[in-house]
């Protein structure tokens, strides 16, 4: 239960970090909050020979208002996001998602960039950025590129980041006025990874749905956008029938694995139930704020 040997590099600027990664890739890994990487190193499931520690790069940690979106630095801690009034008003789905991540001492260290780069299929942030169509910014010595959330995730714990790239910023579209959102999940104990969860962002006009975005976690190799369920609710509104159909479509869209925590069939069923609950909760919040 002790990590294998590695060299620890401590850059103080992004430029320096990118040079270090470029020199040592592919054996080097960025170290963010360490809340996923260090357990994997303790178990020796990961044995990087060089860690490029991003924790002393102060200009990678920020939350700023950029007009139609919030720009969030990759090294922003989950705890900082939880306590940000700006996040709570501009992107309430991100706030909701954060409350489901582990426990306070985990959120003290864990970062949004680390959670997205780690791409755990059960994690809340990947489903959140997918539901909101967020844009991710990556940098390397070769330059900067933007990646849509839909193109970022690439299977179980895999992203389309290159080994020499650092995720630097997440651009979260602001929730439209009068909309509502919710992330609802079931886990074995509070703070555990979700067996199944659904993130929902919804805009209503009376009983009809003018905009809806849904994404699930815990029920496939990565986060899953529930496009079919979105279409059903956009066309048919929030009647019990439509909700049942949307839940059915969500279950059909998932591709869960069974493990010691839950069977595949149970997770698939939960995807439907969580869809209905998330939509119901988001719609109630939309009505409250309208």
């Amino acid at each position, binding site marked *: 239960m002790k990590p294998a040997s*590695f*060299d620890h590099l401590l850059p103080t600027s992004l430029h320096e970090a990118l040079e270090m990664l470029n020199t040592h890739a592919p054996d080097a890994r960025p170290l963010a909050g*360490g809340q996923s990487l260090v357990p994997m190193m303790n178990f020796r499931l990961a044995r990087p020979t060089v860690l490029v520690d991003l924790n002393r790069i102060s200009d990678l940690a920020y939350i700023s208002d950029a007009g139609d979106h919030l720009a969030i630095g990759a090294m922003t801690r989950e705890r900082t996001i939880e306590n940000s009034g700006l996040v709570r008003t501009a992107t309430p789905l991100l706030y909701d998602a954060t409350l489901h991540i582990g426990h*306070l*001492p985990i959120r003290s*260290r864990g970062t949004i960039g680390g959670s997205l780069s780690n791409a755990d299929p059960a994690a809340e942030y990947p489903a959140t950025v997918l539901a909101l169509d967020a844009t991710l910014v990556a940098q390397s010595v070769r330059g900067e590129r933007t990646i849509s959330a839909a193109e970022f995730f690439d299977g179980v714990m895999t992203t389309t980041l290159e080994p020499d790239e650092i995720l630097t910023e997440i651009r979260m579209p602001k929730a439209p006025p009068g909309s509502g959102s919710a992330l609802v999940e079931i886990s074995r*104990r509070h703070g555990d990874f979700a067996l199944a969860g659904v993130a929902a962002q919804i805009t209503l006009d009376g009983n009809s749905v003018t905009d809806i975005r849904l994404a699930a976690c815990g029920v496939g190799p990565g986060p899953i956008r529930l496009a079919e369920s979105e279409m059903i609710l956009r066309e048919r509104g929030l009647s019990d029938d439509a909700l049942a159909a949307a839940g059915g479509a969500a279950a059909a869209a998932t591709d869960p694995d069974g493990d010691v925590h839950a069977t595949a069939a149970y997770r698939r069923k939960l995807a439907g139930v969580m869809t209905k609950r998330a939509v119901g909760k988001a719609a109630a919040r939309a009505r409250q704020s309208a």
Partner: protein
Amino acid sequence: MTAKRSITVIVNGECLTGEAEPRMLLADFLRDELRRTGTHVGCEHGVCGACTIIIDGDAVRSCLMFAVQADGAEISTIEGLATNGEMHPLQKLFSEHHALQCGFCTPGMLMTAIDLVHNSNDHSPGAIRIGMSAALCRCTGYVGIIDAVMEYARQVHGDAAVTGDETGGGRNDG
């Protein structure tokens, strides 16, 4: 093996220096190098909370940080809670409420509770229960622990603050 480096940390107000290879966990550095064995090590993957300490104001898992990352940091551990041989109010409450049996989880429970009570805005019983779910206890069944932490929150913030939501609100949708 990668060469050892000299690491200086302030532990409970005392400036201490030791040596650590990059791969040495902060928990092991505190215990084996600085001989501050109050911080316990259980699971070594962030789940049990026994190793929880406070760094620069926030509770963190010391099994998920490397000692080299803490160079220059201010650390509070269980050893710093009592002053002049007098137990910290939270320690007294743990004793009064039978919030420990074997004591293995207690250092992490106390450091978790101190961050939770002093630094969060929500002191409802539900929020305290959810907050304390960050640490595992194999002995007590938690009732005494929760009672002690709620009583501590009342002492710090007043009776009126520790009311309302019993279940943790929207955090457990289950």
